[in-house]
């Protein structure tokens, strides 16, 4: 191909695709991420899109973005700022220009940078470069729409379909810049449009034409190479996002327990994809019930759990609010249940498509009465699998509802994942009551876990009644006795606390003592990790303590906290975990770093904050 162009080798690159919400940017970004992963890079992605399906064309409100970070080393975040921005219209450029590294490359669709395009996006002038101060950037005006039309004029496709293919032209351009092979994406076309050969050919052609266009124009003076990641552990890999990993982890728990999986759920952004994934899996016997509302979602799950299925319900913040009363019923009846809350920006409807960690207090306390519940949080897209599995294991073995927190960022973000083998996962042995058990007492408990037995209807000799009224300590019949109520409140709390004996000790990344302990939980792991590593590389005495087990917490927390001069709790809310720690470990002082902008942390802002703390500012 183009021999004059120089090839530079880079360790890592961040590319951001942006356009109208109908421009197919999510697909374009996903294809680029998949191609990079299949090529052998480590990858992290960040879809960032509006809640409108199709906002008015060309406006700021309708801009949809997808960021891909790939590298030859371990990649922990989707990257703060991008090296290359693709902007399909002036609105996309206006929204995203601030996320491009100084001097970075910006590829825009010149066909939309006309009077109408500028006006719709609310520019004051007709010169985006000057107005947005992009003089120091390599801005390439490529007529993507007209070249796509030219490329496909003989394809036989209608005009609308041709214009819709412009995202593949843009993808071809980016593939050339980073020397990506086209075959993974071509294979995708063959599978996706198996019944429409003309669409396969059209997509392949426009992708290649975009690739060739980039190799021919002088504006793209050099191309880049990002080597395969050699530091990743050996093994078989696949790409996975958090919601799929969650769905599969729940299925893994059902398989290990030898029970059918039942999911009662109501569609809600950004949790719906878990229900969608489970609905596909009838091949593994999964039963999904799309309920009439959030309350029916959890109540069908509670009924299914009573009848002996491993039952789950999936939701996001507003849905969790609706489920509150039913959570209390699950606590009272002491039935296994996993509730997945994929957190989004709140309060109320809030920011449905944006990430936040502000449901923590609701997860811990959002019920009437003394209603303690196990709460755990996943921290990366792929470990959603492990924590969904663990949520199931704890729920079934300890006979308790377990609330699993993820968030929009890890739920939609994806990364390569070394495929585990189910034989490496622990057994799940729920305390199932055998039929004909002599003297069966519904609320008798095992000493180790304080869990009651799980007695399925249909089994002879163990008929019993459960319900939301306070239970007799052993028989489970209704009891209004004052002392009995105290005992039951105590034992339910003790049962949840007992889970502490069955979870791993808290780990510290970095030295076990130092000047500053960075504390986080859930989906902020990647950013906190990178920030801490960056500071450690500069000799700073900073370590990271990142939590997955929120209630109960691991045993060794106070010991860890005591070995640092300062502690800062970083979270995407106004301090909910910090207050949880203040309540549980009152002997320590906690600094806070909080952000509620619907966006993940950036590593840059974290490092700046940590330096300020170390300097005593």
């Amino acid at each position, binding site marked *: 191909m183009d021999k004059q162009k120089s090839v530079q080798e880079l360790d890592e690159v961040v590319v951001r695709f942006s356009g109208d919400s109908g421009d197919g940017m999510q697909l374009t970004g996903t294809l680029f991420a998949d191609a990079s992963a299949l090529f052998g890079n480590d990858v992290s992605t960040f879809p960032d899109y509006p809640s409108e399906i199709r906002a008015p064309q060309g406006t700021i409100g309708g801009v949809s973005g997808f960021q891909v970070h790939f590298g030859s080393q371990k990649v922990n975040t989707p990257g703060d700022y991008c090296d290359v921005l693709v902007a399909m219209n002036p609105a996309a450029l206006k929204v995203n220009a601030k996320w491009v590294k100084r001097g970075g490359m910006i590829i825009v669709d010149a066909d939309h940078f006309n009077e109408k395009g500028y006006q719709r996006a609310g520019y004051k002038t007709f010169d985006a470069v000057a107005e947005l101060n992009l003089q120091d950037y390599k801005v390439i005006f490529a007529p993507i729409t007209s070249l796509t039309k030219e490329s496909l004029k003989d394809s036989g496709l209608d005009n609308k379909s041709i214009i819709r293919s412009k995202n593949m032209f843009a993808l071809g351009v980016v593939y050339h810049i980073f020397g990506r092979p086209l075959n993974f994406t071509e294979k995708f076309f063959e599978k996706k449009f198996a019944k429409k050969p003309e669409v396969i050919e059209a997509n392949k052609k426009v992708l290649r034409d975009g690739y060739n266009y980039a190799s021919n124009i002088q504006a793209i003076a050099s191309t880049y190479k990002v080597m395969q990641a050699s530091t990743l552990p050996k093994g078989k890999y696949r790409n996975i996002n958090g919601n799929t990993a969650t769905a599969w982890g729940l299925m893994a728990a059902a398989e290990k327990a030898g029970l059918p999986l039942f999911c*009662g759920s109501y569609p809600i952004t950004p949790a719906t994809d878990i229900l969608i994934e489970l609905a596909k899996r009838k*091949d593994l016997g999964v039963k999904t019930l799309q309920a009439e509302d959030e309350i029916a979602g959890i109540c069908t799950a509670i009924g299914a759990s009573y009848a002996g299925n491993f039952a789950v319900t999936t939701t996001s913040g507003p849905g969790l609010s609706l489920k509150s009363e039913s959570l209390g019923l699950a606590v009272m009846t002491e039935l296994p249940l996993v509730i997945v809350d994929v957190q989004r920006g709140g309060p109320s409807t809030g920011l449905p498509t944006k990430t936040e960690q502000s449901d923590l207090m609701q997860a811990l306390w959002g019920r009437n009465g003394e209603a303690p519940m196990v709460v755990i949080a996943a921290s990366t897209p792929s470990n959603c699998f492990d924590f969904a599995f663990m949520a199931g294991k704890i729920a079934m073995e300890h006979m308790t509802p377990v609330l699993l927190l993820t968030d929009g960022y890890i739920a939609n973000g994806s990364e390569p994942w070394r*495929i585990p083998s189910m034989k490496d996962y622990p057994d799940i042995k729920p305390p199932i009551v055998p039929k004909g058990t002599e003297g069966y007492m519904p609320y008798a408990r095992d000493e180790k876990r304080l869990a009651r037995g799980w007695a399925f209807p249909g089994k002879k000799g163990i008929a019993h*009644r459960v319900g939301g009224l306070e239970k007799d300590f052993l028989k489970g019949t209704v009891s209004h006795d004052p002392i009995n109520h105290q005992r039951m409140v105590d034992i339910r709390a003790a049962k949840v606390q007992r889970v502490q004996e069955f979870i791993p000790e808290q780990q510290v990344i970095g030295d076990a003592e130092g000047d500053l302990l960075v504390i986080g939980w859930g989906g902020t792991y990647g950013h906190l990790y990178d920030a801490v590593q960056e500071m450690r590389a500069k000799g700073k005495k900073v370590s990271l303590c990142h939590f997955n087990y929120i209630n109960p917490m691991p045993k060794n927390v106070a010991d860890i906290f005591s070995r640092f001069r300062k502690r800062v709790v970083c979270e995407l809310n106004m301090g909910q975990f910090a207050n949880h720690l203040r309540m549980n470990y009152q002997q320590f002082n906690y600094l806070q770093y909080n952000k509620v902008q619907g966006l993940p942390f950036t590593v840059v802002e974290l490092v700046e904050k940590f330096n300020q703390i170390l300097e005593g500012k």
Partner: protein
Amino acid sequence: MNYTPQDFKSDQEVRWCPGCGNHAILNAVLKALPEVSKQLKYNLERYVFVSGIGCSSRFPYYVNTFGFHGIHGRATAIATGVKVANPNLSVWLVTGDGDALAIGGNHLIHAVRRNIDINILLFNNQIYGLTKGQYSPTSPLGAITKTSPFGTVEHPFRPGELVIGAQGKFFARSLDVDVKLTAEVMLEAAKHDGTSVVVILQNCVIFNDGAYNYITDREYRDDRVIVLRHGEKMIFGKNRDKGLILSGLSLKVVTIGQGGFTMDDILVHDAYNPNPGIHMMLANMEYPDFPVALGVIRNVKDSTYDDNVRDQVLEVMKTAKIKSVDDLLNSGDTWEV
């Protein structure tokens, strides 16, 4: 499967008010269950009684089967989960007019629409009893209660109309005082595959005493109710001389032998007719213009939700390539490092 009513009686003390209609309904259930067990070959452990909140919802504690006393309005959803999880169970739901039609209205219509195979016993006393006397969604317009001291200003639901409107396939009605009829329709409900709704007109002796005296009183009961049985003429009255005919598009009460009407003119009850038109009219009949219809008003076959769920899973599993989570994890695009 030879059981007696005693086998289904739990050891719990029944705590409804003396004179409450629920006692009679409990007796009807205890009478029906041995017969259901015999005819359908069900063991005792196959029964699950689910309930919500309200006086009626204490019911599961009083039957010696598996039971789940849920939360207000949600019994329908809980029962749905039980049945989908294990379709072999015989699932019974006990609820009231507040539980099923106010706070639980949404779940009720969706259960009916899905046609999940559960039996819903809806005790309708037209009042909130457990909270001591507020009006319910079935209290008649103008009813004076603690929360409507000047009379209600809202129109009540007619449960039969609601159920049939939600594409209900089985609807029956009985009186608490008629234990024999109640047990009879319960048996029919149990035999019906799909959502069976049985409304039992029940007297709240404390907060709405005598609400149904106009039809339960022995003196005029026969003249004011009609017991419908599939395939039989729609006849009622002490002297069995009154009947229903179709006049234009409406039902009409006639006296046989008067006005030229003979037995041949009287309608024959067809509970199996999929067309809900006549069933809706029968369910909506109100005294004094009409007798109140009792018995099985509608009983139509259709596929059930729980069967459909199970069949779809089995169908997909038959030809599935993915047979374990390991298969799934290794499916699709993968690569070696």
